[in-house]
């Protein structure tokens, strides 16, 4: 039969008891020379040591969700992000957006009555909002009204917005109305139309717009 003692698995009090027991039983003249090494493994004869299993280094091409979470890829730091660092992203977004909506300096986007209003608003909803400066004008939650900042992350149901006070806030899209500034233009977008996964947004077909009630 194999009996194996692994001292590392014992608690602190057991270790102290063992050391004091050994000390008492050793000849008092020799006590100063005593060295107690509790990490040592004792083994009886005619037994085989358990082989320690080596962990295989995985050569996977993809990361699992847990590995991503351990690296901290899902959670943005709520306080260490700086508003100043995001301003270049906003500049980039401005260029992208005016190119995407094919706006020149003097052109005016179509108003509600125009025939091209529908297609324009479809393009607007399909565009990307990372880096936009967004202000909440109406919301079912009154404390969210007036919150503004640069969009850092865009998920299916929320915007993560970095305000001027360097704080990251999460705003639900469903019950809010957003105001977006681009050059001298001001767009008002119902958050309900934006509740699509960002990866699917540019492909998904959008049905007719209904004015949602808040």
């Amino acid at each position, binding site marked *: 039969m194999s009996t194996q003692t692994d001292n590392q698995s014992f608690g602190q009090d057991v270790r102290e008891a063992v050391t004091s027991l050994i000390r008492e039983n050793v000849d008092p003249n020799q006590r100063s020379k005593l060295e107690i090494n509790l990490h040592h493994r004792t083994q009886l004869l005619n037994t085989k040591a358990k082989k320690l299993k080596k962990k295989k280094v995985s050569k996977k091409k*993809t990361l699992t969700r847990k590995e991503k979470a351990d*690296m901290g*890829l899902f959670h943005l730091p709520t306080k260490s992000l700086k508003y100043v660092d995001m301003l270049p*992203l906003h500049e*980039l977004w401005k260029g992208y957006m005016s190119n995407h909506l094919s706006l020149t300096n003097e052109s005016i986007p179509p108003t509600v009555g125009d025939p091209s209003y529908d297609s324009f608003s479809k*393009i607007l909803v399909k*565009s990307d909002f990372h*880096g936009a400066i967004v202000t909440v004008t109406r919301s079912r939650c009154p404390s969210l009204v007036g919150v503004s900042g640069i969009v850092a992350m865009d998920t299916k149901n929320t915007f993560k917005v970095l305000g001027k006070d360097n704080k990251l806030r999460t705003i639900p899209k469903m019950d809010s109305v957003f105001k977006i500034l681009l050059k001298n233009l001001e767009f008002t977008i119902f958050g309900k139309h934006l509740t699509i996964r960002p990866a699917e947004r*540019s492909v998904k077909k959008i049905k007719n717009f209904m004015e949602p009630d808040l």
Partner: protein
Amino acid sequence: MGGKKQKCFGKDVFERMNFLYQAGTLMAGNNKALSCYYGQLCKSIGKKAVLRIEPNLHRTMCKRCGNILKPSKSAELSISDENPKMCVITCNVCGKCRRFPINPNYNLWFDNPQSVVEEIRYDGESDENQKN
């Protein structure tokens, strides 16, 4: 090469992917979560719309976590001694390394003039060579 006015297929998606790639490059080295997120999103949009990223750009994105690889900022570049010599890029976020053989005579198929079948011009701006 004609003067026909044609709509570029998937132009808005290309624009969006391009924007996300640039956003990822901005964030690379400063904020690993955002850089990975933008890179990953750029990839997944391409997957969803069945559009390909240009191979030279594709090589600068981490295959595993989507981080944009900037040597000395978000990645480490080294040359290994084996034959043929390899250029090894290691991602600083997930540790994935990719190896490319160094061969001065080799060109990507994309850069080869034989690969161009047709050149289409859209309203003066050529979108053909931007991303294909």
